[in-house]
């Protein structure tokens, strides 16, 4: 085999192996299901510093048990300061936590994690969810339509809750886990 072609082949094989193992490592380390795109991902798990892990599906979250927000306008700011508004419907996070009574006495923070490994930048105080009942939600509709590619569930936090932050980072698409700290 020509030397040049041999080097090209070796490079391709090395890069292929690196990517394969990097993917495997990411799936294991981040606890990601590699086949989640082919499954029905309408379940949300709330775990961490809680009495018992809570698993809810889309119908549970839409139920009247929890405080529902309907087509409410949320204000967003992205990483370069661009501002925009969108309307979302969903259940208030604080109402879910209180109705289910799963919080421990020392539970203090929450963080959103998506099915694709994306997560909100850092845990924020549960008191923010309590004080802003209508503005920290688990959304299932945008402009009265299902979330399609971004869903079925997505976390939404209004700019007023965490001012001076890029709130788009807290809008975690394909939301599957809420980690209580």
């Amino acid at each position, binding site marked *: 085999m020509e030397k*040049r072609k041999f080097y090209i082949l070796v490079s391709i094989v090395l*890069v292929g192996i690196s990517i394969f193992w990097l993917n495997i*490592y*990411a799936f294991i380390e981040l606890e990601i299901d590699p086949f989640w795109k082919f499954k029905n991902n309408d379940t949300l798990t709330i775990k961490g510093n809680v009495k018992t892990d809570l698993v809810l599906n889309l119908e549970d979250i839409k139920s009247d048990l929890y405080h529902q927000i309907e087509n409410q306008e949320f204000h967003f700011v*992205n990483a370069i300061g661009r501002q925009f508004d969108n309307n979302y419907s969903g259940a208030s996070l604080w109402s879910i936590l209180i109705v289910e009574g799963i919080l421990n006495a020392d539970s203090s923070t929450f963080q959103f994690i998506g099915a*694709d490994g994306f997560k909100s930048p850092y845990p924020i105080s549960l008191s923010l969810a309590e004080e802003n009942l209508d503005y920290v939600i688990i959304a299932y509709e945008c402009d009265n339509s299902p979330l399609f590619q971004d869903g079925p569930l997505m976390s939404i936090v209004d700019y007023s809750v965490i001012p001076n932050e890029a709130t788009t980072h807290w809008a975690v698409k394909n939301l599957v886990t809420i980690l209580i700290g």
Partner: protein
Amino acid sequence: MKSEEFKKEKEVYVREIEEVNGYKKTGFKKVRENKLTTLDLLYSTIIGVMGGFISSIIPFSLLIKVWYPLTGGTQLVSGHHVMWAVIVYGLTQKKRNIMITMLSKGLIEFLLGDIWGIVIIFVNIMEGFCLVIGFFLIERIGEGQTNLGWGIAGGFGNFFQAPFFWMVNQRWHLHWSLWAIALMFAFISGILITGILGRTIKNALIKAGVPTTF
């Protein structure tokens, strides 16, 4: 001395053309003076504008979202953003045309309301600059006309945007493996889509009779 000879040669040539055809072909015989021809500018702007519309309006990320499960996977198809400049370079062999193509593309994306605003023009120019560096390097090592060379140049061209957008988006909190995969995907997409697919399209265009300017 050489330039005087060239000027004389050119004057004779132009006179011959004007006498025979009654007009001077636009941009013809300009290559040795290192100036852009009208055709160069037309290729750069038309293909750049086309690329701008496609990059803005067609959500290529839909292709990858169907199956790739990790965040950052859309980098696998990101190479199409820079492919247009490779096609233009193939038809003109002038690196300045890469910059004009990417500037035209960036302007269209900006005017169509890209979420990054004016930053998108800077990103396009930087992508063009990286592609120029890529071509410069591969031509220095004698791979200027091979698939490998064009692939590597394309990889360089498409690589800038991935770390730039991830840094501007402040994705520091994401796991390092996601960063590594996204950056590798950007380079691979540059090789396959920007470089090799761009070269294939360029070859097909030339074969179909599209005039080159080199």
